[in-house]
């Protein structure tokens, strides 16, 4: 059952990954095996808040997720600390043909990244936002946890938005404004 769930999850994520065929199936089988170990080791923690199968499936999903993160960590295309700021507008769908509309905004964002963030926040922002490194891959690189990296990025996002609001680029509640 766990193998079936792992294969299903690997296949679901497959189209967006550069992993296919036997390598993807191997990843799924390893995830299922590790999930079985986790389920067995944590049986005493099952509190009946959900069906047992749902609780067990969760470990499979987590293992598939972790193994994909490790795969990208080994993948040579992943660049963790290169800084090509020209890519930043494109990350948010800005059209180069309309640079006059967004040039100031992204220049202000870059200034805020340099002036407002701590070195750790800047490192995480550059890796995840600028270099498109998967968060789980960065977790492995930094020997950290998903929650810890998320909290660093969360605080970076909050500080950057506050800086852009203070400089008149966004209003306090401007989500959806074009």
């Amino acid at each position, binding site marked *: 059952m766990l193998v079936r769930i792992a294969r299903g999850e690997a296949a679901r994520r497959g189209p967006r990954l550069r992993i296919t065929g036997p390598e993807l199936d191997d990843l799924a089988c390893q995830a299922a095996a590790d999930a079985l170990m986790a389920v067995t080791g944590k049986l005493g923690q099952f509190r009946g808040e959900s069906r047992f199968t749902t609780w067990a499936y969760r470990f499979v999903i987590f293992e598939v*997720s972790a193994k994909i993160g490790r795969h990208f960590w080994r993948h040579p295309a992943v660049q963790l600390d290169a800084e090509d700021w020209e890519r930043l507008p494109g990350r948010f769908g800005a*059209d180069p043909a309309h640079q006059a509309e*967004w040039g100031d905004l992204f220049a202000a964002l870059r200034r805020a990244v340099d002036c407002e963030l701590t070195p750790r926040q800047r490192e995480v922002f550059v890796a995840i936002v600028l270099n498109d490194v998967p968060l789980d891959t960065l977790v492995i690189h930094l020997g950290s946890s998903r929650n810890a990296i998320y909290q660093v990025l969360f605080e970076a996002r909050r500080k950057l938005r506050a800086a852009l609001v203070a400089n008149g680029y966004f209003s306090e509640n401007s989500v959806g404004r074009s």
Partner: protein
Amino acid sequence: MNGRPALDRFLQTDPQDVGCDQAMEMLHVYAELVASGEPAQQRYPGIAAHLHACGPCGEDFEGLLAAIRGGAH
């Protein structure tokens, strides 16, 4: 497209966001509520806020939901 709305959405933070650890701890309960049509977002607004903002946790949620619904074949 000038990128402004997407950047704004990305930079918005929700103070209710519970973070990855709490969200993943309750993911099985939350996903089952969603799968059964219960108002999971109202019952666990902090988890909903987190899954909306965190790509990896959101992906795990979608995977678990697909498994529950039998889509994992």
